């Protein structure tokens, strides 16, 4: 879809020794993370492991106590999709999607196209209040992508959806990412989701990067194949501490090449 196609490319993301204290508690301690332009990185971890704080720092919503976040190259702004869609209930879909655009573009063909691309063609004048949870997240995706972001942050965007809707949405996110080429950082506690979508899965444990696994499965990825399940088992093993690798922290999450 032309409306979402990006002339530029994703940003190069580089996080160095990121530390964040809330009071005396270190939520993040010395996190290193890199993402190539256009790479899809998933951050998995238990509740309270610091993954949301990491994402908020990348978005500029939270200031690190120490460390550097650098975004280089690429075009377009940083956009974020939250677990709750955060649509403005008093604005029709067209105005919700156009929110981050310059004033003169707020009611153009781009918005119509963006809504159509997420499967909501012709729904421009609906109120958010009549949408289902999945439809809300579709609108939130359209709102994020209509500005052609260089970096898209996804904070457990599908966590509140039912299993079937979640599968549909995962497919949609993968398609949109493949079409437009933004760099993506997905925070999730669903290891299947991470393995299905990401080029690389990074685990976060007590504020430290535990493991960094490259997922070399062809796309679109068939679930429940032996290869898929092997990667899932690998990530889960690291997360649950059954396999070595998580102790050698902080592992530099950079991928060579």
């Amino acid at each position, binding site marked *: 879809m032309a409306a979402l196609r990006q002339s530029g490319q994703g940003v190069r993301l580089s996080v160095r020794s990121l530390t964040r204290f809330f009071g005396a508690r270190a939520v993040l301690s010395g996190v290193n993370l890199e993402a190539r332009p256009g790479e899809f990185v998933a951050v998995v971890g238990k509740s309270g492991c610091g993954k949301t704080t990491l994402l908020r720092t990348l*978005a*500029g*919503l939270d200031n690190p106590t120490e460390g550097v976040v650098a975004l280089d190259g690429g075009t377009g*702004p*940083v*956009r*974020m999709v*939250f677990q*709750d869609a*955060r649509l*403005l*209930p*008093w*604005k*029709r879909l067209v105005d919700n999607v156009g*929110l*981050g655009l310059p004033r003169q573009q707020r009611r153009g063909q781009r918005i119509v196209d963006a809504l159509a691309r997420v499967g909501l063609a012709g729904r421009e004048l609906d*109120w*958010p*209040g*009549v*949408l*289902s*949870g999945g439809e809300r997240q579709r609108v939130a995706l359209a*709102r994020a992508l209509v*500005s052609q972001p260089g970096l898209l942050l996804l904070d457990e965007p599908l966590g509140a959806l039912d299993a079937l809707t979640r599968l549909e949405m995962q497919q949609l996110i993968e398609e949109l990412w493949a079409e437009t080429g933004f760099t993506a950082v997905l925070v999730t506690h669903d290891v299947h989701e991470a393995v299905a979508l990401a080029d690389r899965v990074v685990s976060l444990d007590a504020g430290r990067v535990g493991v960094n696994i490259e997922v070399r499965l062809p796309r679109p990825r068939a679930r429940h194949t032996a290869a898929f399940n092997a990667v899932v088992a690998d990530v889960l093993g690291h997360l649950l501490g059954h396999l070595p690798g998580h102790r050698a922290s902080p592992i530099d999450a950079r991928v060579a090449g």
Partner: protein
Amino acid sequence: MIGQQSGGARGVLPTPLLVARAGLRVAASGELLHHSWVSLQRALVGLLIGGGIGFLLGLINGYFTLAERLIDTPVQMVRNIPHLALIPLVILWFGLGEQSKIFLVALGVLFPIYVNTFHGVRTVDPGLLEMGRLYGLSPAALFLNIVLPGALPSILVGLRFALGLMWLSLIVAETIAADAGIGYLAMNAREFMQTDVIILSIILYALLGKLADVAARLLERRWLGWDPRRLRAAGAEVPS
């Protein structure tokens, strides 16, 4: 029942028929329109002034924590004085003219609008504000697109409370000192023992009160049409 006078209670409660006749008489002489218009004007001017001040104070104190610290306490202190207790002072300050009535109405409507505007601004979903900032909205755009519409349901609740207090303040003010208006009509009728006109005045107040309520409902329908509860009531299929 409607037209029969029961016993010698003529001076206590007139029949509906007598009240209707009084209505026709007062309407024909032009007094009805004149006094209603004077009262309505006082009510609206008072609402505009007091509501405007309450709205602005509520916005400022809701938006800026420093302003709240400085202004909220004195406002709350004044709020706890029954404003009708100020009538003797108000008459000394403004005399018996229009200003005293408008002042009392303005004072009466100020606080419900202030409190509800303040509450509305404070309870705007912080997640929406965070999203707005991240999506590059300027402070002015944040205010217009998120803070104000988010506070609007609460502000309209305040408006409906204020409309009740608006009539209450006006009735009291007009009853105590006025040379025109519905309250004057009633007090003047008392001088001549015209209970039918007194009842007519009470009915007029009730009708004007209802009119204000209908106006508030229309505003709510126009401005809060996005509310999922309203959408459901209007027959839309809304997922819960």
